[in-house]
């Protein structure tokens, strides 16, 4: 299945802004993060098709996954 991943802020460095790629059926948000080498401790907001999701959420064909890093500074 095809999934479009949109990365934000520091996640773009050395990766991409947006990419549509093939992922096997059953892929979760966590699997995508691993494949992109994004540490789970750095993951902030995660959205599929503009709805907030958690790491264990399974993706479907055509989904758009958006990943934002966790920002905590002040």
């Amino acid at each position, binding site marked *: 299945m095809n999934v479009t991943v949109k990365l934000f802020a*520091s996640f773009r460095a050395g990766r991409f*802004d947006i990419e549509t790629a093939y992922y096997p059926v059953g892929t979760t948000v966590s699997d995508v993060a691993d494949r992109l080498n994004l540490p789970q401790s750095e993951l*902030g*907001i995660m959205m599929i098709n*503009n709805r*907030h999701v958690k790491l264990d959420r399974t993706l479907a064909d055509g989904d758009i996954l958006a990943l934002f*890093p*966790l*920002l905590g500074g*002040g």
Partner: protein
Amino acid sequence: MDSLPIFLRDHAESQLLPWSRQVEAADHFGVALAQVEEIALERGILPARYQRNRQAIPVSDQLTMFRSSVAVIGCGGLGGYVVEELARLGVGRIVVIDPDVFEEHNLNRQLFSTPANLGYAKVEVAARRVREINPAVTLVPIQEAFSPANGTELLKGCQIVVDALDTIQVRLELAEVCSAMNIPLVHGAIAGWFGHVATQFPGDGTIQAIYGSWKEGKGVEQTLGNPSFTPAVVASLEVAEVCKLLIGQGTPLRGRQLVIDLFSMEMQVINIGEGHRETA
């Protein structure tokens, strides 16, 4: 005292009260500058220092602002700019809470930090700065760490709370306290070239939604650091939210999060409101 309003009326120029006259009135009538300011505003006379606030903020709203109390939690990168802007705006009472003293690594971005201020309490330096820039407003310095244990006492009487913290755990605790006390919370966070802003109304659970995946530790600021411009941008956006909330005008970022990327120069708004509960 009865003659103070007459003095102000007689010495206002086109309904503007020059600073020199405000000081003269305080001296002559033996009252605080703050009291002169309130009496002037009540009579539709604007202290001249606020004349460029006009249109954006009418005189009646300037009075509302003067009678308001805003708490700023954290007096570092975000907090310094937030305090400066609230004081210039004319918010009458600003409560600033931070346990720290200025250290050398603050100098790249924290507005009140100078080599001469190293080692001094951030909240004390903030109080000095506010006395310099606007002696008619009151800064209440509290050199303590905010916690659920002291939070209710510290935020008592505040209409709005501004999140200028640097730890996620305390942000989540602050959000809980604000919700329980029925106080809106303006949230901001930064890391490197990036930041976000959102306004939580009591019961909205906005901060919990933003940090729903957090387990422990710091965010990416730990590796990205914080350059000078990002706190200035995010703090200013937070103060704009505070201003709107205090005067009841405009549209706040309720149920929405403004995400700022100064590296790609992109800003976007994502929904937090109904969207934050995970869908099946």
